[in-house]
C-alpha cells in the first residue's frame, strides 16, 4: 500500500439558510484547502461528492466544477454520495499509481427544498418511496429498536445531544451549539416518537474540501500529514425490515477491514446525525469510554448533506495535523438508518 495522507482541510460555515449558490459557497473553501497545501494546480485528480436531487437538476454537479477550475482540462470524477466516498475514490486513484495529488470536495445546499421529502426519493422505488416515509421517521424506527434492545432511555439520548452542543461551542462552523439543559430538552414533545428535536440534526447548507498527497509530496506539503492507514466501506440491504436496525454490521465490518481496533484511538469523528446512532456506532467500532468522540460537535450540530461525512474525515485529520492526536478514526454514513458506512483510520506517523 502506498503512503497517502490528508495534507489540508477546509470547510464553509454551516448555515441554516445560505444565500450564496453552490459555486459561491464552494470556491473560497477549495481555495483555502489548496492554499494550505501549498500544492500548485492542476491536481493529478479531482473528485467530488454531491446530490443532484438537492438542486433538482440532472448533472447539477457539473456546475460546481467552476469552483475547482476545470481549464485546462483536468482528470475528474464525481460520486452521487457523501464526499467521504469521493475521498475513497481519490485514494484508490493514488494507490493505483495514476496520481500523486488529489483534490476532494463536497457540497450540499438543502435549504431551498423540503429535505425530508427529497431524502424519501433515495429509498427503494417500489415498496418504500411510494409511501413517502421521511428520514426522521425512519431514524425513529431505528432509535426505538435500539432503545428496546438495550434499555436505553430518552435521557441517555439527550445526554449525547447536550455533550455534542457543548463541544460545538468551540467549532465556529457549527449550526447549533450551546449549554443545553437536559430537563428542558426532555420537556419538549417528540417530533417522531421516540425522537425529539434535539435528537435530530439541523438542516443546513455547507461545503468542504480536502487535499490528498502521496509519500514525499505529502511530507513537503504538511509538517504533520494525517496518513490514511486504513479505509473501507460496506453497505447493507435497502430493505429496512431485512436488517437488524439496533446494530451496525456494515460499520463493524468496515472498521475491522480498516484496522480501527489495531491500536489505541485518541479521537473519533462519527457521522451520527441522530443521537442513538452515535451509541450504535461506538459499539460497532468498539470505542471505549476513553475515546474522545466528536470534539467538533459532530453531525448533530452541523449536518450539511453529502458533506458531513467528508467533514468527519477532515475534523479527525485536523486533530492529527495539529498534533493533538496520534491516531484517529473517522466515519461517514449514507442512506437511511446507517445503511452504508465508511471507516477511515488516520495516524500521525
Amino acid at each position, binding site marked *: 500500500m502506498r503512503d497517502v495522507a490528508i495534507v489540508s482541510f477546509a470547510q464553509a460555515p454551516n448555515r441554516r439558510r445560505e444565500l450564496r449558490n453552490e459555486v459561491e459557497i464552494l470556491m473560497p473553501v477549495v481555495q483555502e484547502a489548496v492554499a494550505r497545501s501549498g500544492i500548485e494546480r492542476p491536481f493529478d485528480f479531482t473528485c467530488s461528492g454531491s446530490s443532484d436531487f438537492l438542486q*433538482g*437538476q*440532472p448533472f447539477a454537479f457539473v456546475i460546481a466544477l467552476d469552483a475547482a477550475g476545470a481549464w485546462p482540462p483536468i482528470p475528474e470524477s464525481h460520486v452521487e454520495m457523501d464526499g467521504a466516498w469521493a475521498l475513497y475514490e481519490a485514494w484508490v486513484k493514488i494507490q493505483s499509481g495514476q496520481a500523486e495529488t488529489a483534490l476532494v470536495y463536497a457540497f450540499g445546499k438543502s435549504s431551498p427544498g423540503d429535505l*425530508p*421529502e427529497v431524502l424519501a426519493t433515495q429509498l427503494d*422505488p*417500489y*415498496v*418504500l418511496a*411510494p*409511501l*413517502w*416515509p*421521511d428520514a426522521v*421517521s*425512519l431514524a*425513529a*424506527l*431505528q*432509535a*426505538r*429498536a435500539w432503545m*428496546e434492545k438495550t434499555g436505553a432511555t430518552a435521557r441517555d439520548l439527550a445526554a449525547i445531544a447536550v455533550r455534542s452542543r457543548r463541544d460545538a461551542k468551540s467549532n465556529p462552523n457549527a449550526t447549533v451549539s450551546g449549554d443545553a439543559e437536559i430537563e428542558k430538552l426532555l420537556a419538549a*414533545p*417528540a*417530533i*417522531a*416518537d*421516540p*425522537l425529539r428535536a434535539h435528537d435530530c440534526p439541523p438542516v443546513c447548507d455547507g461545503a468542504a474540501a480536502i487535499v490528498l498527497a502521496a509519500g514525499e509530496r505529502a511530507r513537503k506539503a504538511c509538517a504533520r500529514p494525517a496518513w490514511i492507514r486504513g479505509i473501507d466501506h460496506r453497505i*447493507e*440491504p435497502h*430493505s*429496512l*425490515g*431485512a*436488517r437488524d*436496525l439496533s446494530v451496525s454490521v456494515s460499520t463493524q465490518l468496515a472498521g475491522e477491514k480498516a484496522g480501527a481496533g489495531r491500536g489505541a484511538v485518541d479521537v473519533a469523528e462519527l457521522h451520527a446525525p441522530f443521537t442513538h446512532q452515535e451509541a450504535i456506532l461506538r459499539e460497532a467500532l468498539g470505542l471505549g469510554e476513553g475515546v474522545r468522540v466528536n470534539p467538533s460537535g459532530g453531525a448533530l450540530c452541523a449536518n450539511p448533506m453529502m458533506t458531513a461525512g467528508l467533514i468527519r474525515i477532515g475534523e479527525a485529520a485536523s486533530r492529527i495535523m495539529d498534533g493533538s492526536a496520534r491516531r484517529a478514526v473517522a466515519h461517514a454514513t449514507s442512506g437511511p438508518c446507517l445503511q452504508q458506512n465508511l471507516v477511515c483510520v488516520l495516524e500521525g506517523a
Partner: protein
Amino acid sequence: MSQDVRDENGVLTAPHVLEYPYRRSVGPVLGRFFTALRDGKLIGVATQQGRVLVPPAEYDPETGAAVADRFVDVGPGGVVTTWSWVPRPRAKQPLGRPFAWALIRLDGADTALLHAVDAGDPSRMRTGLRVVPRWRAERVGHIADIECFTPENA
C-alpha cells in the same frame, strides 16, 4: 425562442419540468408481489435457506444468492417489530391524520415490511402489537393497495 421568455417585470424565465421519462419493469419477483396485492393477497419469496422475504427480492440479502423460485402466502396479519409516531403527516404520506410508521413481520415471513398503522393515538402502539391490512376497494398492483394496517383487535 418563444416570445414569453420575459415575465411582466422583464425577468428572463424558462420552464423547467423535472421528469423521469423511462418505463421500468418490476421484474419476476416484485411483479408477482404486486400482482398478488392487486388480488388482495400477500406473498413472500423463499431463499435457498428457506427464509421467507417480505417484501420479496430477487436476491437473498444475507448471501447475495438468487432466491428460490418458490412463493409463499403470508399474513394477512403480522406483528410490529418497531415503530415511530407521525404527529403531523406530510401531504404525500398514506394517512391525513396522525399515524405510526411500523416495520411489520407478517405471519409466515422472516423479514419485515414498512407501512403505516392507523392506530389513532401513540398510546395504542407497541412493539409486538398484532396488526392487519386495510385493503383499498380498487387495487392496481401497488404498495398503496394496502391503505394502511390497523390494530387487529380494534
